[in-house]
């Protein structure tokens, strides 16, 4: 079964309805679309004496990527989803560059004959995007910037789809491993 795969990495915004219309086909009873957005975040600022705790608000996210690798790694993940589930079309659009509060970051769309495959494939694609595609978020607050930390919960979510040999993304620094062997009992 041919699965139409459309993957793009771009600074430009996307129009959800255009992506949805391109995914619709006669043999598909289900289209699942997921959009990731830049959400509001707050962080505490230094407290002035006697004043209530002021907070700083997120202004934008800046997405950096590895241009020679990003698109083909998304394509490879889409290929895995197409093998695993009964699908007809996959669209992944990931934006890069400076994205202000409220902006669209990512769209994952899946068309399938039945909804269970479409939901599962969309879920799997997002878990892989979060863990295995070379994209990094820099968080811009009004008074500071920092790189977003990878979340343990995202890594755990990915493990649901993986077999042991597929887990190629491993920490190349042997930090912490030696501590385990020297525990006294």
């Amino acid at each position, binding site marked *: 079964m041919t699965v139409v795969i459309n993957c793009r990495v771009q600074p430009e915004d996307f129009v959800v309805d255009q992506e949805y219309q391109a995914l619709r086909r006669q043999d598909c009873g289900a289209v699942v679309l997921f959009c990731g957005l830049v959400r509001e975040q707050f962080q505490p600022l230094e407290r002035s004496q006697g004043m209530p705790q002021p907070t700083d608000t997120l202004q934008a996210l800046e997405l950096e990527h590895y241009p020679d690798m990003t698109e083909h790694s998304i394509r490879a993940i889409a290929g895995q989803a197409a093998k695993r589930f009964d699908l007809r079309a996959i669209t992944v659009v990931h934006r890069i560059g400076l994205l202000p509060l409220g902006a669209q970051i990512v769209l994952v769309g899946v068309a399938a004959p039945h909804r269970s495959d479409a939901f599962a494939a969309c879920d799997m694609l997002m878990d892989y995007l979060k863990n295995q595609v070379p*994209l*990094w978020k820099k968080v811009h607050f009004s008074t500071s910037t920092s790189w977003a930390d990878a979340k343990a919960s995202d890594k755990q979510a990915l493990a649901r789809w993986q077999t042991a040999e597929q887990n*190629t993304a*491993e920490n190349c*620094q042997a930090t912490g491993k030696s501590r385990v062997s020297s525990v006294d009992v």
Partner: protein
Amino acid sequence: MPDITINTTAVSDATPQIKVLFFAALREAIGQSELQLTLPAPLQISGVLALLSAQSPKVHQALAGREVLAALNQQLVGCDSWVQSGDEVALFPPVTGG
């Protein structure tokens, strides 16, 4: 049995070199996005990290205590993957896209 022949054409005079790329927080900590590295011997990714740390105090400091992922020729790999002359090795923190 075929005769044993010595291949004299495939050996290049050039020193074995790889391109190393850094991204995101690691790129900022090191202060550059790429460098050329001469391979003194066949190395795995872990050996490339050790060599980089040994050659530059700045890289050593940037790598110390940091979780690092590696891609070899644009594919995510484990740290025991072998690197060859002409390869592109990318080193970066855990990804945070999506």
